[in-house]
Every structure is written in structure tokens, then in C-alpha cells.
């Protein structure tokens, strides 16, 4: 029976192609086995009682059995123990994989009805396709231009909502070269089921070649630098402290103090918010003169400006990512 099912062509197991995939599958099979066992025990008892105590002609009146406190305790405590084990196992995996490793390759993702826009840090852009190297942790910095989407790669056992107005992070480390489905898993309107694509996991060498073949004239940070000048950000955010805004060299990753004394880490979400809603993040020591750029910059452009701000204080942005070759 099982052999027949396995040969029937019906797939039973999605491909597992990431580091977390293997761990997750172990837990999944444990849960499946446990459920199967509990079903056998419960249904077995149910069927046994139903048959053994079926009504018979001239049967006697069943005895009065009110309750059994020891039994109630046993079948309360055993499920509690089982649940605690599952909770700890799953929460441990979840917690361990919550933060991407430092030094992950960063890729920007913008979801919009109904396509995926992706951009590599070196500037390569893709639509509904993502090319990544094998055995390297990949960190997606994601936002949406319209409604909520969800970046789901079944083979990596990972998904995360892509929410307008904020950044969400997703990361994975592919372990197998191949082509895998990318689905939008959060219902996003008419062509939700068309918002699909492919993730190509490539060998390091193929990836480097692909990156070189598709190299853009500028890196993401380079484009961001031009935008920074075009939008006249540099009028206020000068490299010395002479502007009316704070200098941004080394600002990314630092801690900003707000006028109410609250301290906030300057991360992608902080910069996003301050570009679109500057009055909500008044930084201490500076006048409130920054205008909102809502409607003037797209989500992709904000990500490029962020890439530029990140690069400030590191080395100058490379015009072309030739180092990859």
C-alpha cells in the first residue's frame, strides 16, 4: 500500500534545500508520527469499546460510572507533557533562526501587486526571479509598495509577510543547487496566484558569473548616492556638522536619541520612517525642518538610499561590482 502510494507519482515531501529545512522536517515527522500514534490509541479504544459494548438483545443496564479523578489527572498531565516538549522543540528552532547571521548577503525585496522586485546589493535587479549562491546565508530586507504580501519558498521552509510601511526580515541558507518555487502566501488581490516565481540556487562560480553577466552600471548604493544628491538630502545632511540635519557618516547601526529621551537604533526601518514621516522621529539636538518625501520616492529608491547611507563610513560605493569576478 505504502509502496504503491510512493510510486503513484503523488509527491509526499517537498524538496528540502536549506539548513532550516532539514531541522524542521525532523520535527514535522516527529509530530506526524506522534499524531499517528495518538490516533491509533484513541481510535483503537473508541472502536474497541464501540464493538465490545455494542447493544445486545436482553443486555443489562449499564453501570453508573461517574468519574475517576486519577484518570482525569493522567489524561491531563500526559498531554501537558507532550505539548511542553513540542512547544520547546519548535520554539527553540524558531528562536535560533530568528536573527540572520552577521555578514549575510543582503537582498532587497519589494512586493507589489502582483510581482516581486528584487535587488542585489551590487545593483542587479530581478523580477519574479532570485539568483543566489549555495551555502551562503541570504538575508532579505522586504517591504511592500501596496498591500501585504508574503515571501514563501517551500523548499527553504521559510515564509514571512511583506508589509507596507515597514521592513520585515527573512533569511535562509540554501544547501542544494536547483530551482525552487517562490510563492506569495498572503492573499493580495486579483492575481495573487500569479505572484509566483523561481529561486535559483547556484554554485559559487555560476553565481559569480551570473552576477558579472548582469552587472549594472551602478551598485544600489551608487544609485542611492545620486538620489541623495538629486533629492537635495545633502543640503542638510553634510559630512561635517554644519548642516541643519545630522551627518550620516557612520550613522547606520548607531543609536539615536529622540527629543523625548527615547533611544532608538538607526536601522533600515528607522531610516524608512524618517524619510516618509520625519515628524514621528524627532532626533534630539536638531531643528524639525525635514520635509516628508512621501510620494516623491518609491520603495525601491528608499532601499537604494538606505544602501548608500549604510555605505557611508565604510569604503566609498563601488561603481561596478567587479570584485566579484
Amino acid at each position, binding site marked *: 500500500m505504502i509502496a504503491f502510494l510512493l510510486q503513484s507519482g503523488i509527491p509526499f515531501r517537498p524538496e528540502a534545500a536549506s539548513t532550516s529545512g532539514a531541522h524542521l522536517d525532523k520535527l514535522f515527522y516527529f509530530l506526524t508520527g506522534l499524531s499517528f500514534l495518538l490516533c491509533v490509541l484513541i481510535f483503537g479504544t473508541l472502536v474497541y469499546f464501540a464493538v465490545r459494548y455494542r447493544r445486545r438483545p436482553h443486555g443489562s443496564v*449499564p453501570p453508573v460510572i*461517574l468519574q475517576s479523578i486519577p484518570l482525569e489527572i493522567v489524561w491531563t498531565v500526559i498531554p501537558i507533557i507532550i505539548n511542553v516538549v513540542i512547544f520547546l522543540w519548535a520554539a527553540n528552532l524558531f528562536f535560533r533562526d530568528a536573527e540572520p547571521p552577521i555578514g549575510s548577503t543582503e537582498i532587497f525585496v519589494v512586493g507589489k501587486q502582483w510581482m516581486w522586485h528584487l535587488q542585489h546589493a551590487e545593483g542587479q535587479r530581478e523580477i519574479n526571479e532570485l539568483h543566489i549562491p549555495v551555502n551562503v546565508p541570504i538575508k532579505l530586507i522586504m517591504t511592500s509598495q501596496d498591500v*501585504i504580501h508574503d515571501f514563501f519558498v517551500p523548499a527553504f521552509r521559510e515564509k514571512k509577510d511583506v508589509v507596507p510601511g515597514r521592513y520585515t526580515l527573512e533569511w535562509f541558507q540554501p544547501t542544494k543547487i536547483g530551482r525552487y518555487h517562490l510563492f506569495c502566501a498572503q*492573499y493580495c488581490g486579483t492575481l495573487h496566484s500569479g505572484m509566483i516565481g523561481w529561486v535559483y540556487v547556484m554554485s559559487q562560480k555560476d553565481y559569480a558569473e551570473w552576477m558579472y553577466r548582469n552587472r549594472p552600471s551602478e551598485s544600489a548604493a551608487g544609485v542611492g548616492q545620486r538620489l541623495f544628491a538629486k533629492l537635495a538630502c545633502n543640503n542638510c545632511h553634510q559630512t561635517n556638522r554644519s548642516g541643519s540635519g545630522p551627518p550620516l557618516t557612520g550613522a547606520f547601526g548607531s543609536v539615536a536619541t529622540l527629543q523625548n529621551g527615547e533611544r532608538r537604533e538607526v536601522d533600515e526601518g528607522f531610516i524608512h520612517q524618517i524619510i516618509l514621516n520625519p515628524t*514621528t522621529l524627532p532626533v534630539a539636538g536638531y531643528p524639525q525642518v525635514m520635509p516628508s518625501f512621501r510620494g516623491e520616492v518609491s520603495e525601491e529608491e528608499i532601499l537604494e538610499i538606505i544602501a548608500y547611507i549604510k555605505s557611508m563610513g565604510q569604503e566609498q560605493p563601488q561603481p561596478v561590482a567587479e570584485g566579484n569576478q
Partner: protein
Amino acid sequence: MSTAVVERPLYNPVNYLNVKHTLKSWLLTTDHKRIALLYLGSITMLFFVGGFAAMLMRLNLLEPAGAIVHPETYNKLFTMHGIVMVWFFLIPSIPTTLGNFLIPIMVGARDLAFPKLNLLSWYIFIFGSAFTLYALVSGGVDTGWTFYTPLSSLYVTTHVMAAAAGVFITGFSSILTGLNFIVTVHKMRAPGMTWFRLPLFVWSMYATSVIFVLATPVLAITLLLIGLERGLHVGIFDPALGGDPILFQHLFWFYSHPAVYIMILPGMGVVSELVAAFSRKRVFGYKAIGFSSMAIALFGFFVWGHHMFVSGQSVYAGMVFSALSFAVAIPSAIKVFNWTATLYKGSISFDAPMLYALGFIGLFTIGGLTGLFLAALSVDVHVHDTYFVIAHFHYIMVGGAVMAYLGGIHFWWPKITGKLYPDVWARLAAVIIFVGFNLTFFPQYLLGYLGMPRRYAMYPAEFQMLNVMSTAGASILGLGYLLPLVYLIWSLRYGPDAGPNPFLATGLEWEETQSPPTTHNFEEIPVVTQDAYAYENMGIPNV
């Protein structure tokens, strides 16, 4: 719980059904039993509307590119299926029909505490359904039943306002029904009907009513906020206006997770009655089952965040919601064990209602166990928003709630109508529904694990085989649902008279009223002198 102090009155040929025949006497009735029938007719119609949408969806999924409709239509179909089935069938199903009919009789009262309010509930329900049906026939809604923002508040151009207004209005009908039940159980119990002599069905309806009253207003507020943003551009959920789209999910699930228990708790109450009646035994662990209903109602309010593990909510919030979700599974497991233990040394017969009850226990167990997969954080990351979730909640909602509803309708049908239905057909239907259900929804667990997302009008070709299996099962299931409609209506005219207690069951409704009951249920209010389910005094019906 029998023991009338007076001699049992003779059969009264005038009962609540034939006391008056005019349309007006139905539309202006304050008799809880007639109102139950008004609801039964309304929700049965709505069930087939929602079922029809499901059938079209399953047909469309026969082919990867979509066999019959455009994705836009498909989206409207699943939205309509969800809205109708959740708010206009499952939530009102058992409470407004069996609850309305039975609660006053089970506690030994002549009616609910507020009969006119009860009629008002039905009118509000009909008014709300009219809004929603208008939205559906005038072009449809494509937000999904969950109305997630900012899609629902800013992006779609369909009749969101009308559909939301329908759900908003219908919510008040739920609140009034819950209020009515709570007051009735507190204030209208017959002499001697102590809390721990109440049938477990009443306990479960009491727990359900508490959720009705506490949770439904939150839904009303949430829908109102969508209206404010959509109509007046007040920034609540839209980030461009300074709002937060995730806030909507918190508010929505704060109602909608407890609503899941509104759907399943009444079913658990029905099953407790059925298991006792058809094993001729007291329910094992009466208090454990009663208190677990209350525990479910309480814990149910603190697990909403498990719908949002991948929404970007904090890792720590996720862990707390996961732990609480595992906690809410415990009282459900306790119920399953107690029902199973009730069978021990019983005298078990397999009448149609019992087949539904056994089916319920099996399917609810599978649905509950797969709920553990979803409560487990890292597993949920993979299967969230896939067909795994669809399969899980259909095992609870359809395998659980609908099976219990049908079991209850079959059990109390002779009481409600005074007629017997053909038992062979009823058993056949129960088996067909069980088989069709499993064939429809089990393949969806596999689809979900393989990664097929929900709400997809089109899908990659490798998922086709399992989708075809599911659609085949749905055809069998659909047939199974049509059968009771036919033979139950048939029985109204041709069924033999049932007599007051054809199943020889305990309870005031069986022992102290005729079938169908008279308008005031009891000639004299009974005095209760013993516990529920005193089957040891009832003997055993002939085999």
C-alpha cells in the same frame, strides 16, 4: 432528571407547530421553538449558498490554470464561501437552532428570558444576511473573509462596505442571542435544576454565549474602523496615513479566534448528549467536560497571535502565543478522553445521531492534533497560509461543528417535528458524509506540506493529482449533504409519529414534553430531583 410531581398530562393535539397557521403567526412569533425553526430555514439556505461557492472552487481547481473561472471570480467565490459559512452558517448554526429550541426546555422554562429580543435577533440576522447577499449578487467581494487591510480598506473596488455592514449588523444578533441565553440559564432554571444538574449542552451553550457577548463587539469596532478608513480616509490601518496594517490583524483575530470556539463549543455540547444517550450511560467526567468548556472559552481569548507568527510580530510575542495555544489544546483533549471513557461498559447503539457523534470525535481529534503542528512556531512558518491550514480548520469546522450540528438535528428532529425519519437513509448519509469529508480534506494536508498556498486560483502542475482527489471527495460530500435535506423534508409528511421519547433518552425535553411540544413546553414547571443522564433508571430500548 425526570420525576414530574404531577401525573404526566395526556397528549395535547395542539402543539407549537399547529397552534396557528398564518404567516403572521410565524413572523411575529415569540415562541423560542418557532424562532428556532425560522433560523433553521434561513441558515440551511445560506449553507447551500456557501456550499455552492465551495463546489465551484473545487471544480475550478481541477486544472492548474483554473478550469472554469477567472481568478477574479475565484477570489470572489472563496470570499463568499468564507463569509457565508463563518458568519451566516457556522456561528449561528447550533446556538440559534438547537440552542433556541432546547435551552428553555432543558432548564425547565416556558421560553427564553427575553422572547421579543429573541425574535429581534432573527430579524437582525435576516437584515444582515440581506446586506451580505446583496454584496454577493451585485458583483461580489474579493477581500477574503478576513478583510485584511490595507487590501480591504484601500485597494479593492468591490462591495466591501456592504459585505462588512452585513457582518457588522449580524453581530448584534449574536450578542442578543448570547445575552438571552446567559440570563435564561442564570434566572430561569426550574426548581431543583442546579448548575451541576444542567445537561452539558447547556454548559457549552453558556460558554459560547459568554464569547458571543465579549468578543463580537470587537469585531463590530474593527469593521467600523475599516469603514472609517475606506469612507472617510481616517488613517488607522494604512501606513501612508500613519496607520498600521498589522493592528487590523490583532483586532480581527481577537474576535475571530474566540469565534472558532463559538463554532466548536456547541458541537461539543451536542456530542456529550449523543454519546450518553446512545451508550445508555451517564457522561463520564461531567464536571471535567463542563469546566473544560469554560476553560476553552477563557483561554480562547488569549491565543489570537498564533494567526500572526509570520506577520513580523515580535519573536517573544510569538513564543507567548504559541505556549498559550498549546494550553488551549488541553481542555479539548480532556473532552475527547471523557467521551471515549463514557463508552466503557455502555450499551452502544449505532443510530444515525451516534454515527455523527463518533465521526465528530474522530475528525475533531485529527483536526486537534494538526492544530498542534500549527501552534508549533517553526512548523507554522512553513505551513501557515497553505492548504495545511485549510485542512486543519475544515476538520474542526466541518468535520467537527457540522457533523455535530447534523447529529443534533437528527437526534432532536423527532422532538422538533414529532416525526421519525428513515434511519437507514440517515445512517447512509452519515457514512457518505464521513467518507466524502476525508477524501476532500485529507489530501489538503499533503498539499499544504508540499507548499501549495491557500487562495490560489491557479497552481503549479505538480499539485494537480491531489487537487483532483480533493474535488472528487467534495462531490461525494456534496451528495451527502443533499440526502438529509431530502429525507428530513420527506419525513415531515410521510414519517411515522415519533412519540414523546423515541430514543428513550433522559432530559426534560424528552421526559416532560410531548413531540412536538406545546407552545408553553410544560403543563406545569417540572421539579428536578436528580442529575442529568440518569440512564440507569431508563432501561434500554429494544434492539
